[in-house]
């Protein structure tokens, strides 16, 4: 009854097809492993800090094919185990090697709705690329993320130039119309909501995504800046989800401007909550409400909107400050500090209480930040922000830290060095010390944890209400795009199986 084709039996991804065998025989393992990893072309750092252009320029066709040759098409690929959505990595890479780029995208579309996004923002070094066999040979792993990005970008460009609509995954064509009468509501249009919506639509359900803001994509849109993730790329991937039949309703904040009861009245039978963890956290130290201290969300929303929005006449120009300090060392912090350089900061600093090796940001982003001239004040923790005579931020007091004994988790936690406090002049502080979950208002209390997360079963994403599932940052706290997507996909599988079970247990009379 399930029209959704099971991947293992899908010839698209089978390793035993004739062409894959031939391809494997074409080059020896020694030949393949002697090829150097193709480096991603980047805009030079002196130039890129003066513009908003994407830093990574993407692989050319020849570069991509060359890199694809490095992949050994392992029988038991370690990379796939590291991918939270279990992308069929060798299958798509081998399609790149034989230059069947459209099929490569079809393979990726089996498991992901955001290949161009993930190819750019996934921490591959901790996921797929960490599981690659090349690591065992002490060689750099296959550039899986760069190839994923190439496949998505190439196909997008082809369909744009030929004037086609978005390239739609073929699976949609085999979805049964059987579930078309079942309405599913998704709350939040970030990666988790999009992944869930895409998968449910592929399975034939009637899916509507509600978004509080006036643009779709969640953090991908309002948070991550253009120089890491161009907005066109995100829009094109969302267009592909829409092409699957998913409806989008913007400017609707569920729980505030539309009640859960209304969702029920409108006939929604299943709800997936993917509202993210957008609520900014502060450290609770003196001076955090001074003018000149702001959250990463405020800073990045204003930065991202710089060509259009001016806020009450105070547009992005007022964000152009000489000395900018960003507190924290996650991806958000790196994005913010690099945005500061692009706004003309002479001194852009990361202030982080642990040491460089504990920084949670992606390796590539840290490297980009270093190249661009960001200063890293590691083992420093802000304890107070100071104001000048006008009441505006002028300096921060930083407590020097050192790493203590490892705690139970094995991580060496930072401890204060008594008396080592220094004052550093600064004109703008951006606080990026994490986020709090954003549960919708009106949600029954029993679904919420004390920290405001939604409590669900880890595997299925199901809450204690059978009709409500949740995933992404609202369940995990601030995490990553790919984990959010993985949650969406697992919840789609579990929810659709729940519906199928109901139907298969129903008899007439």
């Amino acid at each position: 009854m399930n029209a959704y084709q099971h991947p293992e039996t899908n010839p698209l991804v089978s390793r035993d097809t004739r062409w894959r065998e031939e391809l494997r025989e074409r080059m020896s393992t020694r030949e393949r492993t002697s090829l150097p990893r193709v480096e991603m072309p980047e805009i030079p750092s002196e130039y890129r800090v003066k513009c908003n252009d994407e830093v990574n320029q993407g692989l050319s066709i020849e570069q991509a094919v060359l890199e694809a040759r490095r992949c050994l098409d392992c029988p038991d690929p370690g990379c796939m185990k590291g991918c939270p959505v279990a992308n069929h990595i060798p299958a798509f890479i081998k399609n790149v090697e034989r230059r069947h780029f459209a099929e490569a995208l079809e393979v990726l579309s089996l498991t992901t709705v955001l290949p161009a996004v993930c190819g750019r923002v996934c921490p591959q070094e901790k996921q797929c690329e960490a599981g690659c066999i090349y690591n065992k040979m002490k060689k750099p792993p296959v550039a899986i993320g760069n190839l994923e990005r190439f496949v998505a970008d190439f196909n997008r460009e082809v369909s744009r130039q030929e004037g086609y609509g978005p390239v739609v995954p073929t699976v949609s064509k085999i979805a049964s119309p059987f579930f078309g009468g079942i309405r599913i509501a998704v709350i939040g249009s970030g990666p988790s909501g999009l992944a869930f919506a895409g998968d449910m639509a592929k399975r034939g359900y009637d899916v509507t995504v509600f978004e509080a803001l006036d643009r779709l994509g969640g953090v991908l849109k309002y948070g991550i800046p253009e120089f890491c993730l161009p907005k066109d790329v995100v829009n094109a991937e969302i267009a592909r989800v829409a092409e699957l039949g998913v409806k989008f309703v913007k400017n609707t904040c569920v729980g505030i401007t539309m009640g859960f009861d209304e969702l029920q009245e409108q006939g929604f039978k299943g709800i997936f909550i993917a509202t993210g963890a957008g609520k900014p956290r502060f450290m609770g130290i003196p001076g955090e409400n001074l003018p000149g201290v702001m959250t990463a969300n405020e800073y990045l929303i204003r930065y991202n909107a710089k060509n259009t929005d001016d806020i009450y006449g105070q547009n992005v120009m007022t964000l152009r400050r000489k000395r900018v300090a960003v507190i924290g060392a996650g991806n958000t912090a790196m994005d913010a500090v690099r945005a500061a350089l692009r706004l003309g900061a002479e001194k852009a600093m990361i202030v982080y209480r642990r040491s460089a090796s504990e920084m949670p940001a992606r390796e590539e982003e840290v490297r980009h930040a270093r190249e661009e001239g960001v200063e890293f004040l590691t083992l420093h923790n802000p304890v107070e922000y100071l104001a000048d005579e006008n009441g505006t931020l002028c300096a921060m007091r930083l407590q020097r830290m050192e790493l203590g004994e490892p705690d139970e988790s094995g991580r060496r936690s930072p401890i204060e060095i008594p008396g080592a406090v220094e004052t550093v002049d600064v004109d703008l502080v951006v606080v990026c010390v994490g986020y709090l979950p954003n549960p919708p208002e009106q949600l029954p209390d029993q679904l919420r944890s004390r920290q405001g997360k939604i409590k669900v079963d880890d595997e299925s994403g199901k809450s204690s209400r059978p009709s409500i599932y949740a995933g992404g940052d609202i369940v995990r706290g601030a995490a990553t795009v790919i984990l959010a997507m993985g949650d969406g996909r697992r919840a789609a599988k579990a929810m659709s199986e729940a519906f199928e079970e109901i139907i298969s247990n129903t008899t007439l009379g």
Partner: protein
Amino acid sequence: MVATIKKIHRHSENTAELVIADPAIARSARAGHFVMIRFSEDQPRIPFSIVDASPEDGTFTIIIHKGARLTHLINSLEVGRELPNLLGPLGQAFEVANYGTVLCIGDGEGFVPLLSVMHALRDAGCRVITVLSEFSEQNTCLQPDALKWSDDLYHSSSKERAAELIREISSREKVDMVVMTGPSDLMRLLTETARSLSIPARCILNMIMLDGVGICGICRVMVGGERKLTCIDGPTFDAYQVDFTQLLNRQRNFV
């Protein structure tokens, strides 16, 4: 269904009253709620108080009253125009009850948020006394609206006079609550006056907002020692608890 502008009353070059058709908002709007609107792609998203709503007609009313910066916008609006980027109703509704006698004080420019509250308080049986502070030529057009929901109306020419009026009126009759809006320095002064007379006070804050749903933190304010967001926890707060000094500093030196 996309919201559309049903009617426009242009009171002056700087003020326009818009009646907007949007049945869902009309149905759920309560006194104290607001909406966020982006009129066009190159405009920011701006919060507007809902001053009136008619569930029967499926419409609600806002007043655009922002001085010269929005003049161009006001002139460009026309009936029938669709407003695809409209979000609301947002914020916590004003807690309406029969409090007895309520003194409503607002400054000319910023009086708008009080209108729906006065209306609701009157409907709940309160005696509503209004003080219009620092009214200028430009906003006298709000006076008829204010008059409609007031049992008594006073004018004051300055902040200090508005504070004095609280004393005068409360010496003549029992005042059970002060509700205020307008610039933060006015509200700070009025709050101190109300506190010295032990009259409970509510303030409707006027903060810059970006998203209106609690994401950016730009609208944060300290209330009773806790950090609150005006867009989701407010815009109405217990005035005694609000740190106006900090608020004023943030507004004066906006970065």
